[in-house]
């Protein structure tokens, strides 16, 4: 797919598509709302976008399930179409583009060459380094090499999805392909992690739009995630929080509590430890989010969430259970062993005490002296 029009300002592009000034303000207001930016930012963004050049964007997919890309294309506001045609020029995306094979590869090379140092690299999927990168190759080239080449000319890298941000499923124990998150391979480029499995559509496009409009990396938390979306935990924004505070918990998925929409903490909800925007931005255009539809949050935007025990055991429960053995039994065994050990030590100590008493009594042959 040939890039439509090179370096035409966004505003100019909109007018070409018959989008009026008010239509564009509406578009930016919706984007600002999606990005949980303050409402007055919408018109300000519209003003700034008028004359911003349309950045080139390259979308690389590695060891991933295309869930993130599905989510990316499901974005309601701003819609993917408006994004592609109006704001960014998506120069390479092996899923969307019509070209394939060598044509696709040459398109990628051209895109990287023409906009060297200026294009935005979007990546989903982790990068397998096992077997010399042999687990994931395209056109005979391993993902690791493709990543390194693409990264050289990138102005910034946006890692979409927990796989590219933290390694995700491939990275989970036992990590057969020795998969790595992007930030573990590339360290000389600004990286923005948009984690989630998949991330919320508006969060992906919102982050991209925020980078495009401001040209700067938004402020990030220690996992390099935009604070605009990953600043607070689901728990803090959850509409069921009053039930948590009142101590009203659903005990099973279809008991009276669950039907009344009580807190799902006891059913394993990972809301308190998960930083994401699901509770406010919600999914499917604000329809609902996992907790609102009755299932606990599984913490998909946190590093290593696959390895943090059962999705249904409460957050504060420990799970020592070796395969098939419940924790209480293990606690019993541990305690019994320790108590036995303590008893032996106690016997030794008391025994030596009594022995001393016996020895100190007998030579004097006086009445038993003790108290």
């Amino acid at each position: 797919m040939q890039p439509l029009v090179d370096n035409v300002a966004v505003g100019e592009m909109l007018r070409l598509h018959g989008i009026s000034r008010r239509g564009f303000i509406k578009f930016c207001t919706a984007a600002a709302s999606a990005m949980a930016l303050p409402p007055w930012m919408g018109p300000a963004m519209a003003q700034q976008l008028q004359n911003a050049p349309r950045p080139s964007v390259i979308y690389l997919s590695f060891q991933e399930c295309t869930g993130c890309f599905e989510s990316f294309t499901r974005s309601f506001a701003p819609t993917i179409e408006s994004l592609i045609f109006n704001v960014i020029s998506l120069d390479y995306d092996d899923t969307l583009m019509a070209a394939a094979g060598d044509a696709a590869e040459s398109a990628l090379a051209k895109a990287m060459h023409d906009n060297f140092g200026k294009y935005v690299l979007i990546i989903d999927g982790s990068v397998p380094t096992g077997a010399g990168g042999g687990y994931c190759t395209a056109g005979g080239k391993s993902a690791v090499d493709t990543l390194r080449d693409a990264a050289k000319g990138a102005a910034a890298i946006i890692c979409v999805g927990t796989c590219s941000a933290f390694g995700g499923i491939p990275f989970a124990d036992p990590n057969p392909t020795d998969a790595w998150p992007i930030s573990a391979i590339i360290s000389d480029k600004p990286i923005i992690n948009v984690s989630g499995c998949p991330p919320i559509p508006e969060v992906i496009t919102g982050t991209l739009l925020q980078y495009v409009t401001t040209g700067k990396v938004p402020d990030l938390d220690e996992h390099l995630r935009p604070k605009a979306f990953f600043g607070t935990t689901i728990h803090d924004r959850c509409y069921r929080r009053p039930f948590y505070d009142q101590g009203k918990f659903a005990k099973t998925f279809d008991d009276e509590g669950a039907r009344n929409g009580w807190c799902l903490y006891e059913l394993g909800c990972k809301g308190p430890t998960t930083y994401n925007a699901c509770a406010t931005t919600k999914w499917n255009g604000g329809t609902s989010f996992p907790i609102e539809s009755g299932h606990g949050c599984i913490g998909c935007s946190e590093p290593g969430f696959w390895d943090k025990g059962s999705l249904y055991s409460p957050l504060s429960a420990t799970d020592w259970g070796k395969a098939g053995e419940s924790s209480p039994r293990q606690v019993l065994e541990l305690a019994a062993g320790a108590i036995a050990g303590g008893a032996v030590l106690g016997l030794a100590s008391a025994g030596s005490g009594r022995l001393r008493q016996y020895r100190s009594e007998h030579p004097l042959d006086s009445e038993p002296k003790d108290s």
Partner: protein
Amino acid sequence: MDLLHFARGLGLKIALGVFCLGVTWRIVSFALLRIRREYSRPRESVFKYVLGGLITAGSRSWPHREFIGRTGAGEALGYSYHLGLFAVVLLFTPHILFLRSLFGFAWPGLPSSLITIISVLTLTLFLAVLFRRLTSRVMRLLSNFDDYFSWFITMLVMVTGLAATSHVGGPYETLLALHILSVDVLLIWFPFGKLMHAFYIFPSRAINGALLARKGATS
């Protein structure tokens, strides 16, 4: 092996092990020392003075009328933060679930917002208790490392717990890890310090109370 996984996995196992071993060791080593038979003729029947002991175990929880003027405030402060501590530890739902995962059974809890209030209150009472220990000439004379460290580790557990639930001072999982780690340290320290009084308090009152009741003495 991140901190939280260690804290409530291996760390907790070690802590519970040392706790059970230490407590048993300490109790057995004095309990099996020689127990002297009382040959003097008791004033009351065995049943009566054993009952007397049990009554003392309860009555000694509050000062006698003659002492209340002097010690009422001190004991009230002491007991109230204990109540607060028990309420938070035993009636906060996440704690109940934690204990259920360890012991297999659970019980109804208090609303979490109420627990937050109680824990803040308990924290302030706990600071007041340290203030009293530092400013009372008697307590300062008696206090040693054990008193201050036992106070400190319990305080640390409460502070990290409160920080964890209110997401203050860092990501939740690190705070939770620190909270559980401080609980581990508390469990390991428990047998070696004054926290053992949790096991001693009622038997001590009962035994001494019974011996006094055996003489018909005031207790």
